[in-house]
C-alpha cells in the first residue's frame, strides 16, 4: 500500500460519470454474466469495462482483475493500471467480511518495474514525437505536419490523456488536404469520444464526417471511370462496401450518442439502421460488441416504439437479426412483448439486469428504459379492457396488487391511461366521455371567454386611443403608490 502513496503519478481515482451509483450486483445462476465474452474484445474499452465491473460485482472481481491486469500491461497507460488497482481496492472494501477477496498483491505483485519502464518509454516517445512535430512545422510540409499531429494524438490517447489528444486532432483538422483525411480524422476522434463516453460532441463529428464520406465516394467513383471497363464494376462494389463500412461506424456513433443523452427513440432508429457486422470492421471489437448492439437496439425500441413499428423494424429487419443471433435472449424478449406476455418480458429483463448494469454505455439508462418498457406494457395491457380486476392484472405482471396500484395511479396522473381506480371493489375502470355534452360545454365556455376577451380588448383600445397609457415614473408613480396605500388602511379580507 505504501508504494502506491509514494508513487508520484498517482492521480485521483477513477472519475465517475454523473450518476453512477456503486451498488453490489449479484452474479449467480439467476443473473448470468459472461466474462469471457467481455474478454474477447480488444482495446482500451475492455479494460474500462472491467474497471467499471470490478467494484460492482465482487463475486467475479478476482477473475476480472486478472484479465484486466494482463491487458493493461500490454498497453502503455500507467494511470489505467492504478485505476484498476483502486477499483479492486473498492471491491475488496465492498465485499467486506462476508466473502473476503484476496488482496491484490497476492494475485499479482504490483509491478513497479513495469510502471517505471513504461513511464520512461512514454516520456521518450513523447519527446521524440514533439521534436518531429517541430521539425515538420518548420519545414512547412503539410502532409508531414498532419501525420506528426496524428501520431501525437494517438500517443496521448493511448496514454489516457484525452484533452491533449483532442487538441491535436483539432490541429490536425487544419492540415487535412483531401476528404479522406477528414474522414480518417473524424473516425479517430469518434473512437476517442466513445472511449471517453463524451456523448455530446459525437454528433458534431458525425456531421463533419458525412459530407467527407460523400466526397470520398464520389472521387473514388470518378477516378474509376478512367480505367478499363472490366475493372469499373469491381470498383463500384468495392466503393459501396467501403462506404457502407464507414457509414455503419457513423451510425453506431450516432446511436450511442443518442443513447447517452437519453433520446431513446432516435437511438433505436440509429441502432436498427446499422449494417452487417462485417462492415463495422475493427470497431466491433474495439468499441462495442455486436451482442451489445442487439441489446441496446431492442431495449430502446421496446421503450419507445409502438408495436407495429417494433414488428417491422426489429423482427423483420434482416441485418439486425444478425445481431440478435449474438444474444438470443433479446429475441425472446421481443417475441414475448409482441405476444403480450409481459410477465416473461419483465422476468427476462430482471434476469439480465446485472448484464445491463455493468455495461458502461447502458448502465445509467437501464432504470429509465425498464421503467418506460413497464409503463408501455401496462398501457398496452389495459387497452382492450373496459374494466378489469386489479388482481388479475397483477397476476399478469407478476406484481403485488398494491404495487400495481401505485404504478397505475402514477400512469393515470401522467395521463397515459384513461381510467379510474375503484378502490373499494379493486377494479380499474375505463373512462367514457360523453362527447356531445363535452362539445356543448366547450362551445359555451369558448363563447363566454371570447366575449370577455373582446370586451377587455375594446377597453384597452379605447384607453390607448385616449392616450391613457402609463407613463414614465415621475409624480404619477408616487401618487399611484399613495392611492394603493389609501385603499389598504386595513386588510379587507380579515
Amino acid at each position: 500500500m505504501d508504494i502506491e502513496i509514494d508513487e508520484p503519478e498517482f492521480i485521483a481515482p477513477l472519475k465517475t460519470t454523473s450518476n453512477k451509483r456503486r451498488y453490489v450486483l449479484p452474479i449467480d445462476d439467476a443473473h448470468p454474466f459472461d466474462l469471457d465474452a467481455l474478454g474477447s474484445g480488444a482495446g482500451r474499452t475492455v479494460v474500462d469495462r472491467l474497471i467499471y465491473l470490478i467494484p460492482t460485482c465482487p463475486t467475479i472481481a478476482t477473475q476480472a482483475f486478472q484479465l484486466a491486469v494482463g491487458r493493461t500491461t500490454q498497453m502503455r497507460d500507467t494511470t489505467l493500471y492504478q485505476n484498476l488497482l483502486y477499483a479492486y481496492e473498492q471491491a475488496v472494501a465492498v465485499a467486506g467480511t462476508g466473502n473476503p477477496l484476496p488482496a491484490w498483491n497476492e494475485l499479482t505483485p504490483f509491478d513497479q518495474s513495469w510502471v517505471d519502464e513504461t513511464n520512461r518509454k512514454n516520456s521518450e516517445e513523447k519527446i521524440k514525437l514533439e521534436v518531429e512535430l517541430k521539425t515538420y512545422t518548420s519545414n512547412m510540409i503539410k502532409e508531414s505536419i498532419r501525420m506528426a499531429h496524428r501520431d501525437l494524438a494517438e500517443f496521448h490517447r493511448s496514454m489516457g490523456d484525452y484533452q491533449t489528444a483532442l487538441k491535436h486532432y483539432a490541429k490536425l483538422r487544419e492540415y487535412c488536404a483531401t476528404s479522406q483525411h477528414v474522414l480518417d480524422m473524424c473516425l479517430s476522434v469518434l473512437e476517442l469520444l466513445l472511449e471517453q463516453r463524451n456523448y455530446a460532441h459525437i454528433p458534431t463529428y458525425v456531421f463533419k464526417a458525412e459530407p467527407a464520406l460523400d466526397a470520398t465516394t464520389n472521387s473514388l467513383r470518378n477516378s474509376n471511370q478512367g480505367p478499363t471497363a472490366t475493372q469499373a464494376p469491381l470498383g463500384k462494389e468495392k466503393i459501396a462496401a467501403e462506404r457502407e463500412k464507414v457509414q455503419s461506424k457513423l451510425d453506431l456513433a450516432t446511436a450511442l450518442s443518442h443513447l447517452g443523452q437519453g433520446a431513446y427513440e432516435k437511438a433505436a432508429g440509429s441502432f436498427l439502421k446499422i449494417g452487417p457486422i462485417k462492415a463495422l470492421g475493427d470497431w466491433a471489437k474495439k468499441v462495442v460488441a455486436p451482442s451489445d448492439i442487439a441489446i441496446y437496439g431492442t431495449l430502446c425500441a421496446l421503450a419507445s416504439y409502438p408495436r407495429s413499428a417494433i414488428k417491422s423494424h426489429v423482427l423483420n429487419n434482416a441485418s439486425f437479426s444478425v445481431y440478435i443471433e449474438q444474444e438470443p435472449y433479446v429475441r425472446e424478449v421481443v417475441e414475448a412483448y409482441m405476444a403480450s406476455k409481459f410477465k416473461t418480458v419483465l422476468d427476462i429483463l430482471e434476469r439480465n439486469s446485472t448484464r445491463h448494469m455493468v455495461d458502461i454505455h447502458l448502465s445509467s439508462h437501464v432504470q429509465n428504459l425498464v421503467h418506460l418498457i413497464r409503463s408501455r406494457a401496462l398501457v398496452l395491457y389495459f387497452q382492450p379492457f373496459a374494466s378489469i380486476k386489479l388482481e388479475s392484472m397483477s397476476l399478469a405482471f407478476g406484481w403485488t396488487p398494491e404495487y400495481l396500484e401505485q404504478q397505475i395511479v402514477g400512469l393515470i396522473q401522467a395521463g397515459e391511461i384513461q381510467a379510474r381506480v375503484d378502490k373499494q371493489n379493486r377494479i380499474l375502470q375505463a373512462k367514457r366521455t360523453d362527447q356531445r355534452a363535452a362539445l356543448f360545454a366547450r362551445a359555451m365556455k369558448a363563447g363566454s371567454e371570447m366575449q370577455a376577451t373582446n370586451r377587455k380588448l375594446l377597453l384597452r383600445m379605447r384607453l390607448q386611443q385616449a392616450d391613457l397609457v402609463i407613463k414614465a415614473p415621475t409624480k404619477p408613480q408616487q401618487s399611484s403608490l399613495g392611492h394603493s396605500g389609501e385603499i389598504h388602511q386595513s386588510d379587507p379580507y380579515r
Partner: protein
Amino acid sequence: MVQAAGENLKLILGPLRDLATRYPPTPSHLTTLHPIFLTACVTTRHFATALPILSSPIFNIDTSLSELSYNDNLIYHYAGGVAFGALKRWREAEEFLEICVTAPGQIPAAIQLEALKKLTLVQLILYGKATAPPKYTNPTLIRMLKNTSYHTLAKAYPQTISSLTATVYRDIDIFKAEQNLGLVQQVIQRAPRWLIRRLTLTYLTLGLGDIAKEVGIESEEEVRAVVVSMVESEDINASISVDGTVTFTTSTAQFSKAEIDKAVAQAQAQSQLLQELERTMNSSKEYLVKAIKHKDDAWGPDEDVMFNTHPGGSSWADENLYS
C-alpha cells in the same frame, strides 16, 4: 367633496353613488368619479354599495367629459377587484384585477404589481392554479412577479394544508405588510378541495380515511364536511355511502336550449358592435391616409398599423377555445 368629508367617508357614499350613476352618459363610461367612489367604498368597507356601479363593465372612454388619467382606470379596477374579492365574488374580482394588470403602458405601475399579486391569489381560489396573464401584459410585470413569494405559493399549490402553511410561514411578514394575509388564508383553506378534485380524476371510489391521508386532514369528520360542501357547491359529484366510501361520478353539464340561445344572442350582439366599430374606423381619415400609403406594400391586415391590439383579439380568443 371627499376632502371635505374627511373622516366621515361613509356619509358621502350615498351622494357619490348617485352622482356616479347619473353623471356618465352610459354606465359603461369611465369617469373620474369612479375611482373616487370606489376608494371611498373600500376604505369604509361598504363593498356592497359599490355593486350597482361595478356590475356594468367599462368599455367606453370619452375624454371630453372629464379629465381622465390612466390612474383612474387603474385605481377603479383595482378597487373594484378588491371589493368583489371581499364579497367573495371571485370571478368578477379576477376580471377587474386582470383589467388593471393589463392596462397599456410602457412600464408597469406599482399598483399593477399589487393587482397582479392579488390576481394570482384569486386565481388560486378560483381554479386551483395560477394562469398566465394575457399576452398583452407588460412583460416586466411578469418578471417582477416571479421574484415574489406569491409565485412560490402558486407553484407549490395545491398541497396539504400543513405543507402550505409551512411555505407561507416563511413569508408571512410580507403577506401581512401587503395586507394580503386574509386572502392567503382563504387560499390555504381551499387547498384540500383542489386535492380532492384531483383525486376524482384518478379514483372511482375512495374511502374517507384514504382521502384524509391524501389531503392531510386529520379527522374523517372534517373530510366528510369538505366533501359535502364540495358536492353542494357543485365542484364534484359524489355520494357518500354508509361505511364511509365516497363514490365519484362524472357528470357533464347539460345545457338547455334556452341557455344556448341566450349565449348565441349575446355573441351576435357583440359581433354587431364590433362590426360597427370597424366600419367607423374604416371611414376615419387617419386610417384612410395610412391605408393608401401602404396599399403598395402589403395586402395584409392594415388595421394593425393604427391600433395594434385590435386584430390580435381574434387570435387570442382562439387560444382559449380548447383550454
